[in-house]
């Protein structure tokens, strides 16, 4: 086997039983790797009756076929599980350095079940995984725990760690890699916590990897590296990080302000954008394995209430979630909130969005001092957010901490009184910081159709709708108007396949924007010998997309769950897009038609599933299910 190692380690933590799976080679090409292969393993092996935080729940870490190839953006990895936040199938992507290390150890992934008797660390060595008890690590913040693991397993070890939020089963707890890179979304850190698994560590030396066509791989790296590096997206990312275009996005109405009640604020645009971050707080840049872009920010805030020592800086999503969304233009506070969330191990999007919802609830009087234990939740009060609310959420401490630790949908359901109307989430997952009402109406459709909930990276829609890429090989040449529904369902049909390919290949969606469809095909073939054509690669992407929706159907999700909340359906009030309504229902109906999806069940028609090779899935869902 090329690219992939062909071996996936398994461990039952309760029984301390270690084993392996060796999937047939054709399974890799059919599901690509990463989140696609994770979905297939989940379908085949999961106990669908198991609650997300029960010992029977499945937790997967998966590499893509390109992991370890020395090309920018080719070595991300995927974590997957049933989300404790949404109840749906969840996959989360993380950059950094863990994927090549896992590949060097001889594994494409790790499948974890059971619950360790005591807090433990899963240690990956050359060709072996082992569980080591480490109760002393339980309760540690992620920074401290990562430092201890480096002392214990050597400076070259690679770490995946959960913080107190994961230990406390906060349903949006994340997993942090090296204390900087995050498997951020959907609460997979809580799944780790439920298994008494504090960390996963690799302690391996670099090893050669076998690729299908070594000469062509070298050529592709030589050809693609300068193109990726010189691409405008990469230049902006290198100079200003992912917040680099916050200012530009604000002028189009893409950046949500004050819990999505507005999407324009000029003062915040300038105060929070990436160039301001670079000017005021950047000390150096960081990067992921083999990446020439180096978009990661290392920041330091010297003084004031939000002083932070030198360390990981915020990404765009965090800047907006703890800046504009909370009606604050305080960039130092964003840096501090980012560091607090990283150390406690909480997804910054869900955490920020839930606090924004709570501030609006407090302003409306839905949420009172009785609910908050006396804490006043006022717009822009970052001192309270950083020093009280976030620690209480992670600890599930006090009435407010307990309520907000449910995430916005859970908290609104607990509060009642129409509070769900001004949450901004789909299937229970809070929307990222891109407002479809200004950024592009197709984003709204993408949020609703994404299998894991409101997400801008499950599909490539955001990039395609904003003109970041052209794919003439598959008939997509950018000619879209942002603020209409025209061609959006048809574009999303392509974007769903491309996003699924990217997430299954574990490609960085920034770096790979410079690649053509043909080059992606060539990479898969030269590295992993998949023998793809553009058509069969796109088909693999569609297969993955539909499979994830089949999994969700087994968990009870239907077409009715592909919906937007009331707040998301309200026309924007400010800026250029003010007053323009999103034709969501019409787009949804057309998308279902284009994708041959059943308008009640929300899964593809039986003949579509069969044509994609999902015969067993089709049989189970269409012949046996009611």
């Amino acid at each position, binding site marked *: 086997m090329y690219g992939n190692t062909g071996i996936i380690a398994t461990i039952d933590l309760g029984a301390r039983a270690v084993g392996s799976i060796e999937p047939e080679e054709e399974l890799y090409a059919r599901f690509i790797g990463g989140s696609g292969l994770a979905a297939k393993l989940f379908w085949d092996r999961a106990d669908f009756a198991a609650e997300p935080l029960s010992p029977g729940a499945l937790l997967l870490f998966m590499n893509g076929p390109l992991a370890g190839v020395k090309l920018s953006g080719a070595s991300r990895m995927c974590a997957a599980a049933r989300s404790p936040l949404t109840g749906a199938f969840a996959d989360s992507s993380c950059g950094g350095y863990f994927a090549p290390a896992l590949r060097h150890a001889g594994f494409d992934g790790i499948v974890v079940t059971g619950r360790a008797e005591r807090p433990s660390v899963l240690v990956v060595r050359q060709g072996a995984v082992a569980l080591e008890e480490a109760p002393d690590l339980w309760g540690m913040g992620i920074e401290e725990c990562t430092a201890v693991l480096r002392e214990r397993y050597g400076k070259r070890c690679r770490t995946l760690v959960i913080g107190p939020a994961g230990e406390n089963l906060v349903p949006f707890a994340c997993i942090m890699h090296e204390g900087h890179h995050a498997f951020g979304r959907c609460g997979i850190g809580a799944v780790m916590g439920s298994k008494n698994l504090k960390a996963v560590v690799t302690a391996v030396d670099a090893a050669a990897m076998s690729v299908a066509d070594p000469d062509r791989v070298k050529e592709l790296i030589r050809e693609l590296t300068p193109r990726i590096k010189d*691409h405008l997206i990469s230049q902006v990312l290198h100079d200003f990080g992912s917040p680099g275009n916050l200012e530009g996005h604000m002028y*189009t109405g893409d950046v949500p302000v004050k819990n999505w009640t507005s999407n324009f604020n000029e003062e915040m645009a300038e105060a929070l954008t990436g160039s301001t971050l670079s000017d005021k707080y950047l000390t150096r840049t960081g990067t992921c394995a083999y990446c020439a872009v180096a978009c990661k920010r290392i920041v330091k805030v010297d003084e004031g209430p939000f002083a932070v020592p030198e360390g990981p800086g915020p990404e765009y999503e965090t800047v907006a979630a703890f800046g504009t969304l909370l009606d604050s233009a305080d960039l130092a506070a964003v840096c501090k909130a980012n560091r607090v969330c990283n150390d406690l191990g909480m997804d910054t999007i869900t955490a920020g969005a839930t606090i924004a919802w709570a501030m609006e609830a407090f302003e409306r009087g839905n949420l009172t001092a009785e609910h908050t234990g006396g804490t006043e939740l006022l717009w822009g009060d970052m001192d309270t957010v950083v020093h009280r609310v976030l620690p209480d959420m992670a600890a599930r401490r006090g009435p407010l901490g307990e309520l907000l630790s449910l995430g916005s949908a859970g908290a609104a359901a607990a509060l009642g009184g129409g509070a769900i109307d001004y949450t901004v989430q789909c299937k229970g997952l809070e929307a990222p910081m891109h407002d479809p009402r200004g950024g592009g109406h197709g984003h709204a459709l993408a949020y609703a159709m994404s299998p894991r909930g409101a997400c801008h990276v499950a599909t490539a829609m955001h990039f395609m709708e904003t003109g970041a890429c052209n794919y003439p090989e598959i008939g997509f040449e950018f000619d879209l108007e*942002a603020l209409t529904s025209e061609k959006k369902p048809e574009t999303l049909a392509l974007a769903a396949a491309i996003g699924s390919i990217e997430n299954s290949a574990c490609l960085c969606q920034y770096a790979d924007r410079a690649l053509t469809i043909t080059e992606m095909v060539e990479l898969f073939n030269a590295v992993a010998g998949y023998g793809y054509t553009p058509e069969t690669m796109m088909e693999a992407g569609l297969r993955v997309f539909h499979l994830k929706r089949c999994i969700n159907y087994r968990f009870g999700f239907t077409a009715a769950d592909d919906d937007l909340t009331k707040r998301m359906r309200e026309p924007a009030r400010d800026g250029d897009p003010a007053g323009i309504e999103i034709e969501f229902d019409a787009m949804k109906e057309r998308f279902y038609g284009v994708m041959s999806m059943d308008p009640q069940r929300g899964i593809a028609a039986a003949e579509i599933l069969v044509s994609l090779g999902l015969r067993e899935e089709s049989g189970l869902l269409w012949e046996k299910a009611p």
Partner: protein
Amino acid sequence: MTGAGPLRRYVGTGEVELPRGATAGELVSRYGIPGGMQAIVLVGGTRRPPGTVLRDGDVVAIVSLLAGG
């Protein structure tokens, strides 16, 4: 004519003379912005597609977009 954010390095601020019938897309192409398709044109503060014909006196800004983070 102005460039916003990261595009300031490519697009200066000032008046620009264009041939009659010039489009927003043609204006962007004058600046040699790498991956220029990603540059979005705002005319009078409103986002316009590349085929939009510019008129005398239009106030134009070029901004770049980048999803994600």
